[in-house]
């Protein structure tokens, strides 16, 4: 397995902005002079299915898929999707997740896990977990569509990359009229302790 690489796995549900968030990280890595690969299958999953996006940065990256047990950080946008991926985390890796639950079968409540049991799975796999409250975040942001940028802000604290590169990349990838509120969310995310 190649050393000296950073592997981030984004897990969520179609429509949460998982692909945009992973694209921003990838481009910031690229601007910082690293080889980068990302992988996410899209298509039918757009319609409410699971979205999984791999981002790898380092000196030289081969596989666009992160090998199991080599994930440094999991960004979880939804509880059950995060718990589904939790076993792939590296020992000592960190799971950064939002405590939001979107039922996979809205009609049938019995097919759901309780939020508590999902959190236990996540915490057991990653003692260095970090939980972000969905209710508090939405209260702060007044808009749940920018939660992806909010969590991205928190993720950016893990790396010592210049702030300018993050902001530049966000400006490049997000349409002008939505720029301001996305940067607001990103910077608010950076302030989460």
């Amino acid at each position, binding site marked *: *397995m*190649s050393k000296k690489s950073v592997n981030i796995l984004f897990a969520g*549900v*179609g429509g949460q902005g998982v692909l945009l968030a992973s*694209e921003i990280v*990838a*481009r910031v890595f*690229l601007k910082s002079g690293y*080889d*980068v*690969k*990302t*992988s*996410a*299958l*899209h*298509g*039918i*999953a*757009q*319609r*409410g*299915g*699971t979205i999984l996006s791999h981002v790898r940065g380092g000196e030289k*990256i*081969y*596989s*666009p*898929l992160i*090998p*199991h047990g080599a994930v440094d950080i999991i960004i979880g946008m939804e509880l*059950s*999707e995060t718990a*589904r991926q939790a*076993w792939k985390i590296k020992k000592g890796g960190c799971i950064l997740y939002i405590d939001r639950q979107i*039922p*996979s*079968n*809205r*009609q*049938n*409540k019995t*097919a*759901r*896990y309780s939020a508590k049991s999902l959190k236990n*799975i996540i915490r057991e796999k990653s003692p260095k977990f970090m939980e972000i409250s969905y209710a508090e975040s939405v209260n702060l942001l007044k808009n749940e569509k920018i939660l992806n940028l909010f969590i991205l802000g928190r993720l950016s604290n893990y790396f010592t990359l210049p702030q300018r590169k993050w902001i530049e990349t966000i400006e490049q990838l997000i349409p002008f009229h939505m720029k301001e509120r996305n940067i607001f969310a990103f910077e608010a995310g950076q302030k989460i302790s």
Partner: protein
Amino acid sequence: MMNFLSGNEAIAAGAYEFGVSFAAGYPGTPSTEILETISQYPEIDSQWAVNEKVALDVAIGASLGGIRSLAAMKHVGLNVASDTLMTLSYTGVHAGLIVVTVDDPNMNSSQNEQDNRNYAKFAKIPLLEPSDSQEAKDFIRLALRISESFDTPVLLRLTARVAHSKTVVKINPKTRKVKRMNPCDGDSAKYVMIPSNAKKRRIFVDQRSDRLKRFSDKTPVNRIEWGEKNFGIITSGISYHYTMEVCPDQSILKLGMTYPLPTEKIKEFTKALKNVYVIEELDPFLQEQLGSMGIKTTGKEVFPSTGELSPDIICRGLSKKGFQKTITTRRKWPFRAPLLCAGCSYLGLFYILKKLGMIVLGDIGCYSLCAQPPLSALHTCISMGSGIGIAQGYKKALKQNGQKKKVIAVIGDSTFIHSGITPLIDLIYNKEPVSVIILDNGGTAMTGCQGHPGTGITLKNGESPKVNYEQLVKSLGIKRVIEMNSYNLGEVRTIIKKESVCQKPSVIIAKGLCLLVAKGNQYESFKIIPSRCTKCGECLLLSCPAIAMGRNQYPRIDEKLCTGCSLCQQICMVQAIEETQGVQKIC
């Protein structure tokens, strides 16, 4: 300049840089973005075709006219174009011609996982398999070179993982090398495949294959990377990168051109090694060819022949010399199935079809999702347009069994134009009383609402004449043509009930705009009044993602997801669903 592109985008960048001047295709995951990206280059004449066969035919015409051309499609699309492809191999090309196919191992968005590398062998044409976006771009150049110097179409095969992964690509945004040739006029011995000509061309095809074999040995895209010699690996496509992840120090024969195979290089590689593994996704395409050369390798004995490979699967295959065939999951997770959008016009229509107990024969489109519970209202999905033919045969069998039940075929608007018209003519010609519902939602919805002749919107967002479905099917000889609004369930129920007892063929055009097209339209969302709700659960049977079971077993409408379609209000038997105040927009 460095850029960060998906495999599909890199194909488009290559097409631009190496002078492809015409491109056509039909949308289909995972290949859709090839044409969508190409369409952004004004220098390339690009278009959606009605289906993959027509896309390839038009590309051949462009090649004969003297411009480099490309046809792109998903793996099953090549089945549709294969009639042309098999003989195109004999005629060869004039200007360079590339056929791009994107396979879907693991069937993430497809009905099967056929390995289209077999088409190269079947049609006796060269095959290139890029492993990342850089190669996807570079192989366009190579493909054009092979196509023009060997007089052959070239099959460029990606898999979904290569097509959708993004990797770093060197691009030259300002260079574009266009090679213009005089049109080919009147070489009938080459292009008119009557038997006397075809027999001569058939001999040419074998001679060409011999020359291609020698080329395959020379080309640097087939290369040996010497390393540890306790065992060696022969691999191609995305599997190369997975292999490098697992064992970068081993000796590897990396194949970029996988048909015909470089026999000399393979012999040189395998002679030096005791054990050779072949790592490839899906069929043992390489392994079988090596076997016929008398070279014994380990491949499908330890690596699965279905689904995608991954670094972990390769690791397991190499270490244990075996893999578990059963899919083992750590926990029985509730599967997150893809859903129809909240407020989709299909929800109400399929709810009614289910209520009326209809036999519904369908095919490929968003409506395939109506087969899932609780709707469970679709009974076949095999290939584009096949629902109409299947319905005819089913009806014949019912008749012989003495049953009078009416059979319904459903087909999307784009699918109808792709391959629904010919089976409809057959239905009329053979006089079977089947009702065909054309689900007109104003776009090729499943792949992102691309335009088609029924919408009159072209790939480059231009306008074209719209197909008039009513006039079209009437001219085919259908007397009963009914238009209905899919959002008016009273009308839907009456019309389908009436057609289900009428013993004549009919076409129902069900209108209901796809919500991706209707973006920005205003609406008022709905809510359930608990005091009137009897918890009967009828609204849940609609399977609208906006309606979920809430507290105390009362269904609840998620205001943020609701699109104000009113379908649930129409089916509620106790009038417990009402509009909320306040206008919102579909986003």
